[in-house]
Protein backbone atom coordinates (compact mmCIF):
# COMPACT_ATOMS: atom_id res chain seq x y z
CA UNK A 1 0.00 0.00 0.00
CA UNK A 2 2.74 2.36 1.01
CA UNK A 3 4.48 1.54 -2.22
CA UNK A 4 1.44 2.51 -4.23
CA UNK A 5 1.13 5.79 -2.39
CA UNK A 6 4.80 6.46 -2.90
CA UNK A 7 4.45 5.68 -6.54
CA UNK A 8 1.56 8.09 -6.90
CA UNK A 9 3.41 10.81 -5.06
CA UNK A 10 6.63 10.63 -6.95
CA UNK A 11 5.39 9.86 -10.36
CA UNK A 12 3.65 13.21 -10.75
CA UNK A 13 5.30 15.14 -13.47
CA UNK A 14 7.57 17.84 -12.33
CA UNK A 15 6.28 21.15 -13.52
CA UNK A 16 8.27 22.92 -16.14
CA UNK A 17 10.01 26.08 -15.25
CA UNK A 18 7.19 28.56 -14.90
CA UNK A 19 6.79 31.16 -17.53
CA UNK A 20 6.94 34.77 -16.70
CA UNK A 21 3.29 35.15 -15.84
CA UNK A 22 3.46 38.81 -14.91
CA UNK A 23 3.41 40.10 -18.45
CA UNK A 24 1.87 38.10 -21.22
CA UNK A 25 3.81 38.05 -24.45
CA UNK A 26 1.69 39.08 -27.38
CA UNK A 27 2.63 37.56 -30.69
CA UNK A 28 0.21 39.82 -32.44
CA UNK A 29 1.82 42.96 -31.05
CA UNK A 30 5.31 41.87 -32.04
CA UNK A 31 4.51 40.25 -35.32
CA UNK A 32 1.76 41.74 -37.40
CA UNK A 33 1.98 45.13 -35.73
CA UNK A 34 5.63 45.97 -36.21
CA UNK A 35 6.52 43.61 -39.00
CA UNK A 36 8.96 41.38 -37.15
CA UNK A 37 9.60 38.05 -38.76
CA UNK A 38 8.95 34.98 -36.58
CA UNK A 39 12.52 33.85 -37.05
CA UNK A 40 13.87 36.95 -35.39
CA UNK A 41 12.98 35.55 -32.00
CA UNK A 42 12.39 31.90 -32.93
CA UNK A 43 15.84 31.46 -34.34
CA UNK A 44 16.37 28.36 -36.36
CA UNK A 45 12.83 28.31 -37.66
CA UNK A 46 13.94 29.28 -41.08
CA UNK A 47 16.98 27.12 -41.44
CA UNK A 48 17.25 24.65 -38.61
CA UNK A 49 15.40 21.65 -37.23
CA UNK A 50 13.73 23.50 -34.41
CA UNK A 51 12.28 26.92 -33.82
CA UNK A 52 14.00 28.04 -30.64
CA UNK A 53 12.90 30.54 -28.05
CA UNK A 54 14.56 33.90 -27.53
CA UNK A 55 16.88 34.33 -24.63
CA UNK A 56 16.67 37.35 -22.37
CA UNK A 57 19.51 38.83 -24.35
CA UNK A 58 17.50 38.48 -27.54
CA UNK A 59 14.67 40.47 -25.98
CA UNK A 60 17.06 43.09 -24.75
CA UNK A 61 18.41 43.58 -28.25
CA UNK A 62 15.38 45.75 -28.84
CA UNK A 63 14.11 46.49 -25.36
CA UNK A 64 17.28 48.20 -24.19
CA UNK A 65 15.78 51.48 -25.19
CA UNK A 66 12.21 52.62 -24.61
CA UNK A 67 10.27 51.83 -27.75
CA UNK A 68 6.80 53.23 -27.14
CA UNK A 69 5.08 55.67 -24.89
CA UNK A 70 2.86 52.95 -23.48
CA UNK A 71 2.28 53.11 -19.76
CA UNK A 72 3.22 49.49 -19.31
CA UNK A 73 6.78 49.96 -20.47
CA UNK A 74 8.40 50.61 -17.03
CA UNK A 75 6.69 47.53 -15.68
CA UNK A 76 7.97 45.53 -18.63
CA UNK A 77 11.47 46.86 -18.19
CA UNK A 78 11.62 45.89 -14.55
CA UNK A 79 10.19 42.46 -15.33
CA UNK A 80 12.84 42.00 -18.00
CA UNK A 81 15.54 43.00 -15.55
CA UNK A 82 14.42 40.30 -13.15
CA UNK A 83 13.84 37.62 -15.83
CA UNK A 84 15.99 34.50 -16.09
CA UNK A 85 18.54 34.18 -18.89
CA UNK A 86 16.25 31.72 -20.70
CA UNK A 87 12.75 32.89 -19.92
CA UNK A 88 10.91 30.42 -22.14
CA UNK A 89 10.96 26.74 -22.78
CA UNK A 90 8.57 24.08 -23.93
CA UNK A 91 8.35 20.34 -24.48
CA UNK A 92 8.70 19.36 -28.07
CA UNK A 93 5.66 17.45 -29.23
CA UNK A 94 7.68 15.58 -31.79
CA UNK A 95 8.98 12.19 -30.62
CA UNK A 96 12.66 11.37 -30.84
CA UNK A 97 12.15 9.04 -33.80
CA UNK A 98 10.63 11.74 -35.99
CA UNK A 99 12.46 14.62 -37.53
CA UNK A 100 10.71 17.76 -38.56
CA UNK A 101 12.93 20.32 -40.17
CA UNK A 102 11.53 23.83 -39.98
CA UNK A 103 14.10 25.09 -42.43
CA UNK A 104 13.13 22.85 -45.31
CA UNK A 105 9.50 23.74 -44.89
CA UNK A 106 10.31 27.44 -44.79
CA UNK A 107 12.38 27.00 -47.91
CA UNK A 108 9.35 25.47 -49.61
CA UNK A 109 7.48 28.71 -48.89
CA UNK A 110 5.24 27.20 -46.28
CA UNK A 111 4.40 29.96 -43.87
CA UNK A 112 4.47 29.43 -40.12
CA UNK A 113 0.72 30.04 -40.02
CA UNK A 114 0.03 26.92 -42.11
CA UNK A 115 0.72 24.68 -39.16
CA UNK A 116 0.82 27.00 -36.16
CA UNK A 117 -2.26 29.06 -36.94
CA UNK A 118 -2.54 32.82 -36.98
CA UNK A 119 -0.73 34.98 -34.43
CA UNK A 120 -4.00 35.65 -32.61
CA UNK A 121 -4.58 31.89 -32.36
CA UNK A 122 -1.09 31.35 -31.02
CA UNK A 123 -1.70 34.00 -28.38
CA UNK A 124 -4.79 32.08 -27.39
CA UNK A 125 -2.61 29.02 -26.79
CA UNK A 126 -2.93 27.01 -29.98
CA UNK A 127 -0.06 24.69 -30.79
CA UNK A 128 0.82 23.03 -34.03
CA UNK A 129 -0.68 19.60 -34.62
CA UNK A 130 1.82 16.82 -34.94
CA UNK A 131 -0.44 14.07 -36.24
CA UNK A 132 1.25 11.98 -38.88
CA UNK A 133 -1.92 11.86 -40.95
CA UNK A 134 -1.78 15.62 -41.34
CA UNK A 135 1.87 15.57 -42.32
CA UNK A 136 1.10 12.92 -44.91
CA UNK A 137 -1.97 14.63 -46.31
CA UNK A 138 0.13 17.69 -47.07
CA UNK A 139 3.04 15.66 -48.41
CA UNK A 140 0.69 13.81 -50.73
CA UNK A 141 -0.35 17.15 -52.13
CA UNK A 142 -3.84 17.14 -50.68
CA UNK A 143 -3.55 20.48 -48.89
CA UNK A 144 -2.72 22.75 -51.78
CA UNK A 145 1.04 22.43 -51.65
CA UNK A 146 3.14 20.57 -54.16
CA UNK A 147 3.45 16.85 -53.36
CA UNK A 148 6.58 15.97 -51.48
CA UNK A 149 8.47 12.93 -50.33
CA UNK A 150 6.35 10.30 -48.61
CA UNK A 151 8.91 7.62 -48.04
CA UNK A 152 9.20 6.75 -44.39
CA UNK A 153 12.91 7.21 -43.91
CA UNK A 154 12.66 10.88 -44.86
CA UNK A 155 11.15 11.78 -41.51
CA UNK A 156 11.73 8.70 -39.35
CA UNK A 157 14.96 7.51 -37.91
Amino acid at each position, binding site marked *: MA*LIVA*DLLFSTEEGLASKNKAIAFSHELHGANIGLDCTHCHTGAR*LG*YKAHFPSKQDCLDCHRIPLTDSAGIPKLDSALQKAKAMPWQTESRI*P*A*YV*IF*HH*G*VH*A*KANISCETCHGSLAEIDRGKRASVKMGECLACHRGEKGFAPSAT*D*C*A*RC*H*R
Partner: protein
Amino acid sequence: MDQSRRNFLKVASLVLGGLALWGCRRDKNFAPTPKASSDISLWKIEIKQAMQRNISLGDLVPIKIPGPLLKFSKEINRFGMSIDLDICNGCGECILACMLENNIPRVNDNEAQKGRFMHWIEMREGVPVMCSHCGDAPCEKVCPTGAAVASPDGMSAMIYPRCIGSRYCGANCPSKTRKFNYTDARAEGLSAKFNPEVPLRNRGVMEKCSLCVQRLQNDRLLAKTLGKEWRGMGVQSACAMACPKKAIVFGNWLDSESPLSQAVRGRGVYTLRSIAGLDPSVVYLVGRA
Protein backbone atom coordinates in the same frame (compact mmCIF):
# COMPACT_ATOMS: atom_id res chain seq x y z
CA MET B 1 -28.91 -27.13 -8.83
CA ASP B 2 -26.48 -27.87 -6.04
CA GLN B 3 -24.07 -29.31 -8.52
CA SER B 4 -24.09 -26.22 -10.67
CA ARG B 5 -23.67 -23.94 -7.68
CA ARG B 6 -20.63 -25.91 -6.59
CA ASN B 7 -19.28 -25.66 -10.06
CA PHE B 8 -19.89 -21.96 -10.09
CA LEU B 9 -18.13 -21.54 -6.75
CA LYS B 10 -15.20 -23.59 -7.98
CA VAL B 11 -14.84 -21.55 -11.11
CA ALA B 12 -15.30 -18.26 -9.32
CA SER B 13 -12.69 -19.05 -6.67
CA LEU B 14 -10.25 -20.17 -9.34
CA VAL B 15 -10.78 -16.97 -11.27
CA LEU B 16 -10.47 -14.84 -8.14
CA GLY B 17 -7.32 -16.63 -7.05
CA GLY B 18 -5.86 -16.21 -10.50
CA LEU B 19 -6.69 -12.52 -10.53
CA ALA B 20 -5.16 -12.00 -7.09
CA LEU B 21 -1.93 -13.66 -8.15
CA TRP B 22 -2.03 -11.70 -11.36
CA GLY B 23 -2.23 -8.48 -9.40
CA CYS B 24 0.77 -9.46 -7.30
CA ARG B 25 3.10 -9.69 -10.23
CA ARG B 26 2.75 -5.96 -10.81
CA ASP B 27 4.87 -5.52 -7.73
CA LYS B 28 7.94 -6.04 -9.76
CA ASN B 29 7.34 -2.65 -11.31
CA PHE B 30 8.33 -1.14 -7.99
CA ALA B 31 11.74 -2.74 -8.12
CA PRO B 32 14.37 -0.03 -8.38
CA THR B 33 15.61 0.52 -11.90
CA PRO B 34 19.31 -0.17 -12.14
CA LYS B 35 21.31 2.95 -12.69
CA ALA B 36 22.15 3.30 -16.34
CA SER B 37 25.86 3.35 -16.93
CA SER B 38 27.46 5.05 -19.86
CA ASP B 39 30.93 3.71 -19.17
CA ILE B 40 32.28 2.87 -22.59
CA SER B 41 34.60 0.18 -21.25
CA LEU B 42 31.51 -1.94 -20.52
CA TRP B 43 30.63 -1.77 -24.20
CA LYS B 44 34.19 -2.69 -25.14
CA ILE B 45 34.05 -5.74 -22.89
CA GLU B 46 30.82 -6.87 -24.51
CA ILE B 47 32.24 -6.45 -27.99
CA LYS B 48 35.21 -8.58 -27.04
CA GLN B 49 32.84 -11.19 -25.69
CA ALA B 50 30.79 -11.15 -28.89
CA MET B 51 33.86 -11.37 -31.10
CA GLN B 52 34.94 -14.57 -29.40
CA ARG B 53 31.94 -16.38 -30.80
CA ASN B 54 32.56 -18.49 -33.86
CA ILE B 55 30.01 -17.47 -36.45
CA SER B 56 30.68 -18.83 -39.88
CA LEU B 57 30.76 -16.35 -42.70
CA GLY B 58 29.76 -18.60 -45.56
CA ASP B 59 31.08 -18.19 -49.08
CA LEU B 60 31.76 -14.87 -50.69
CA VAL B 61 30.75 -14.68 -54.32
CA PRO B 62 31.55 -12.01 -56.92
CA ILE B 63 28.78 -9.66 -58.00
CA LYS B 64 28.45 -6.67 -60.26
CA ILE B 65 29.02 -3.16 -58.91
CA PRO B 66 25.68 -1.92 -57.53
CA GLY B 67 23.84 0.36 -59.93
CA PRO B 68 20.53 2.20 -59.84
CA LEU B 69 17.79 0.47 -57.87
CA LEU B 70 15.17 -1.36 -59.90
CA LYS B 71 12.39 0.02 -57.74
CA PHE B 72 13.58 3.61 -57.90
CA SER B 73 15.27 3.83 -61.25
CA LYS B 74 15.03 7.62 -61.47
CA GLU B 75 16.81 8.36 -58.21
CA ILE B 76 20.26 9.90 -58.38
CA ASN B 77 21.45 8.62 -55.01
CA ARG B 78 22.03 5.15 -53.74
CA PHE B 79 24.10 4.92 -50.63
CA GLY B 80 26.20 2.01 -49.66
CA MET B 81 29.51 0.90 -48.35
CA SER B 82 32.45 -1.21 -49.35
CA ILE B 83 34.59 -3.14 -46.92
CA ASP B 84 38.06 -3.88 -48.16
CA LEU B 85 38.92 -7.33 -46.87
CA ASP B 86 42.52 -7.00 -48.07
CA ILE B 87 42.99 -4.24 -45.50
CA CYS B 88 40.53 -5.15 -42.75
CA ASN B 89 42.07 -7.06 -39.88
CA GLY B 90 38.87 -7.52 -37.91
CA CYS B 91 39.87 -5.26 -35.02
CA GLY B 92 36.27 -4.47 -34.09
CA GLU B 93 36.64 -0.68 -33.81
CA CYS B 94 33.73 -0.30 -36.21
CA ILE B 95 31.44 -2.21 -33.84
CA LEU B 96 32.16 0.18 -30.99
CA ALA B 97 31.74 3.25 -33.17
CA CYS B 98 28.46 1.89 -34.46
CA MET B 99 27.18 1.20 -30.97
CA LEU B 100 28.05 4.66 -29.74
CA GLU B 101 26.63 6.38 -32.81
CA ASN B 102 23.38 4.47 -32.75
CA ASN B 103 22.87 4.10 -28.99
CA ILE B 104 22.95 0.33 -29.27
CA PRO B 105 22.29 -1.22 -25.87
CA ARG B 106 24.25 -3.97 -24.18
CA VAL B 107 22.44 -7.19 -23.32
CA ASN B 108 22.09 -8.98 -20.03
CA ASP B 109 24.04 -12.13 -19.16
CA ASN B 110 21.23 -14.46 -20.08
CA GLU B 111 20.95 -12.99 -23.56
CA ALA B 112 24.72 -12.90 -23.97
CA GLN B 113 24.88 -16.58 -23.19
CA LYS B 114 22.42 -17.26 -25.97
CA GLY B 115 24.52 -15.09 -28.25
CA ARG B 116 21.74 -12.58 -28.79
CA PHE B 117 23.80 -9.41 -28.92
CA MET B 118 22.29 -6.27 -30.36
CA HIS B 119 25.39 -5.32 -32.34
CA TRP B 120 24.49 -4.05 -35.76
CA ILE B 121 27.91 -5.09 -37.00
CA GLU B 122 28.98 -8.62 -36.25
CA MET B 123 32.38 -10.22 -36.75
CA ARG B 124 32.11 -13.46 -38.66
CA GLU B 125 35.48 -15.12 -39.12
CA GLY B 126 37.09 -11.72 -38.74
CA VAL B 127 34.89 -10.08 -41.34
CA PRO B 128 32.49 -7.33 -40.26
CA VAL B 129 28.98 -8.22 -41.40
CA MET B 130 26.05 -5.82 -41.26
CA CYS B 131 22.78 -5.35 -43.11
CA SER B 132 23.53 -5.18 -46.81
CA HIS B 133 20.60 -2.93 -47.65
CA CYS B 134 19.53 -5.18 -50.50
CA GLY B 135 17.87 -3.51 -53.44
CA ASP B 136 15.45 -6.44 -53.61
CA ALA B 137 15.18 -6.90 -49.87
CA PRO B 138 13.27 -10.00 -48.72
CA CYS B 139 12.71 -8.49 -45.27
CA GLU B 140 10.71 -5.60 -46.69
CA LYS B 141 8.45 -7.88 -48.69
CA VAL B 142 7.26 -9.83 -45.69
CA CYS B 143 6.89 -7.06 -43.13
CA PRO B 144 3.13 -6.88 -42.54
CA THR B 145 2.97 -3.28 -41.44
CA GLY B 146 5.59 -1.72 -43.67
CA ALA B 147 7.97 -1.02 -40.79
CA ALA B 148 10.79 -2.48 -42.84
CA VAL B 149 10.63 -0.37 -45.92
CA ALA B 150 12.82 0.67 -48.81
CA SER B 151 14.02 4.21 -49.02
CA PRO B 152 14.56 5.61 -52.51
CA ASP B 153 18.15 6.46 -51.72
CA GLY B 154 19.13 2.86 -51.27
CA MET B 155 18.60 2.26 -47.59
CA SER B 156 16.49 -0.50 -46.21
CA ALA B 157 14.94 1.55 -43.46
CA MET B 158 13.37 0.52 -40.19
CA ILE B 159 10.44 2.53 -38.82
CA TYR B 160 10.37 1.63 -35.14
CA PRO B 161 6.93 2.96 -34.11
CA ARG B 162 5.39 0.92 -36.88
CA CYS B 163 7.09 -2.31 -35.91
CA ILE B 164 4.87 -4.79 -34.09
CA GLY B 165 7.60 -7.37 -33.59
CA SER B 166 6.32 -10.17 -35.81
CA ARG B 167 9.98 -10.96 -36.52
CA TYR B 168 9.10 -12.10 -40.03
CA CYS B 169 11.81 -9.84 -41.46
CA GLY B 170 14.41 -11.38 -39.20
CA ALA B 171 13.33 -14.87 -40.13
CA ASN B 172 13.44 -14.07 -43.84
CA CYS B 173 16.80 -12.27 -43.81
CA PRO B 174 19.29 -14.63 -45.46
CA SER B 175 22.31 -12.91 -43.89
CA LYS B 176 20.77 -12.91 -40.39
CA THR B 177 21.83 -9.36 -39.66
CA ARG B 178 18.60 -8.17 -38.10
CA LYS B 179 18.53 -7.86 -34.34
CA PHE B 180 15.46 -8.17 -32.19
CA ASN B 181 15.11 -6.30 -28.90
CA TYR B 182 14.33 -9.27 -26.71
CA THR B 183 14.74 -7.31 -23.50
CA ASP B 184 14.06 -3.80 -22.33
CA ALA B 185 17.60 -2.51 -22.14
CA ARG B 186 16.53 0.82 -20.68
CA ALA B 187 14.70 -0.79 -17.78
CA GLU B 188 17.75 -2.91 -17.09
CA GLY B 189 20.06 0.06 -17.27
CA LEU B 190 21.97 -1.41 -20.19
CA SER B 191 21.47 1.35 -22.70
CA ALA B 192 22.82 4.85 -22.80
CA LYS B 193 22.06 7.79 -25.01
CA PHE B 194 25.48 8.56 -26.39
CA ASN B 195 24.09 10.26 -29.45
CA PRO B 196 21.10 12.54 -28.90
CA GLU B 197 20.27 12.32 -32.60
CA VAL B 198 19.24 8.67 -32.51
CA PRO B 199 16.16 7.41 -30.65
CA LEU B 200 16.34 4.54 -28.19
CA ARG B 201 14.41 1.43 -29.17
CA ASN B 202 11.71 -0.39 -27.22
CA ARG B 203 11.56 -3.99 -26.27
CA GLY B 204 9.84 -5.89 -29.03
CA VAL B 205 11.05 -4.09 -32.14
CA MET B 206 13.54 -5.16 -34.76
CA GLU B 207 16.58 -3.11 -35.54
CA LYS B 208 19.62 -3.29 -37.75
CA CYS B 209 22.24 -1.21 -39.50
CA SER B 210 20.54 1.97 -40.67
CA LEU B 211 23.48 3.14 -42.78
CA CYS B 212 23.68 6.02 -40.27
CA VAL B 213 20.47 7.42 -41.66
CA GLN B 214 20.54 10.34 -39.22
CA ARG B 215 23.73 11.68 -40.76
CA LEU B 216 22.31 11.42 -44.24
CA GLN B 217 19.07 13.06 -43.17
CA ASN B 218 20.83 15.96 -41.45
CA ASP B 219 23.06 16.59 -44.42
CA ARG B 220 20.27 16.29 -46.92
CA LEU B 221 18.00 18.68 -45.06
CA LEU B 222 20.73 21.26 -44.67
CA ALA B 223 21.56 21.06 -48.37
CA LYS B 224 17.91 21.33 -49.27
CA THR B 225 17.43 24.32 -47.03
CA LEU B 226 20.27 26.04 -48.75
CA GLY B 227 18.85 25.03 -52.11
CA LYS B 228 21.78 22.88 -53.21
CA GLU B 229 21.67 19.63 -55.11
CA TRP B 230 22.48 16.83 -52.74
CA ARG B 231 24.57 13.80 -53.54
CA GLY B 232 25.62 12.99 -50.01
CA MET B 233 29.21 14.05 -50.59
CA GLY B 234 31.05 14.38 -47.30
CA VAL B 235 28.73 12.18 -45.29
CA GLN B 236 30.37 9.21 -43.65
CA SER B 237 29.00 6.41 -41.57
CA ALA B 238 30.30 5.99 -38.03
CA CYS B 239 32.05 2.72 -38.84
CA ALA B 240 33.78 4.19 -41.88
CA MET B 241 35.00 7.12 -39.78
CA ALA B 242 36.23 4.86 -37.01
CA CYS B 243 38.03 2.29 -39.12
CA PRO B 244 41.73 2.74 -38.27
CA LYS B 245 42.83 1.24 -41.60
CA LYS B 246 40.19 3.01 -43.68
CA ALA B 247 38.94 -0.33 -44.95
CA ILE B 248 35.30 0.78 -44.84
CA VAL B 249 34.26 3.39 -47.37
CA PHE B 250 30.85 5.00 -47.35
CA GLY B 251 29.40 6.77 -50.34
CA ASN B 252 26.98 7.11 -53.19
CA TRP B 253 27.01 4.31 -55.77
CA LEU B 254 25.50 6.55 -58.43
CA ASP B 255 28.00 9.36 -58.04
CA SER B 256 31.24 8.67 -59.87
CA GLU B 257 32.98 11.32 -57.76
CA SER B 258 32.03 9.61 -54.52
CA PRO B 259 34.83 7.99 -52.50
CA LEU B 260 32.92 4.73 -52.72
CA SER B 261 32.87 4.63 -56.49
CA GLN B 262 36.57 5.44 -56.51
CA ALA B 263 37.43 2.80 -53.91
CA VAL B 264 35.63 0.12 -55.89
CA ARG B 265 37.23 0.97 -59.22
CA GLY B 266 39.21 -1.99 -60.49
CA ARG B 267 38.52 -4.12 -57.45
CA GLY B 268 36.79 -7.47 -57.10
CA VAL B 269 33.32 -6.89 -55.64
CA TYR B 270 31.97 -9.69 -53.45
CA THR B 271 29.05 -10.44 -51.22
CA LEU B 272 27.69 -13.32 -49.14
CA ARG B 273 26.39 -16.17 -51.27
CA SER B 274 23.02 -16.12 -49.55
CA ILE B 275 22.25 -12.58 -50.71
CA ALA B 276 24.12 -12.54 -54.00
CA GLY B 277 20.91 -12.33 -56.00
CA LEU B 278 19.35 -9.58 -53.94
CA ASP B 279 21.34 -6.58 -55.19
CA PRO B 280 23.12 -5.61 -51.95
CA SER B 281 24.38 -2.07 -51.38
CA VAL B 282 27.08 -3.02 -48.89
CA VAL B 283 29.78 -5.07 -50.54
CA TYR B 284 33.21 -6.56 -49.85
CA LEU B 285 36.30 -5.81 -51.87
CA VAL B 286 38.82 -8.56 -52.47
CA GLY B 287 41.80 -8.37 -54.83
CA ARG B 288 41.73 -6.92 -58.32
CA ALA B 289 38.83 -7.35 -60.68
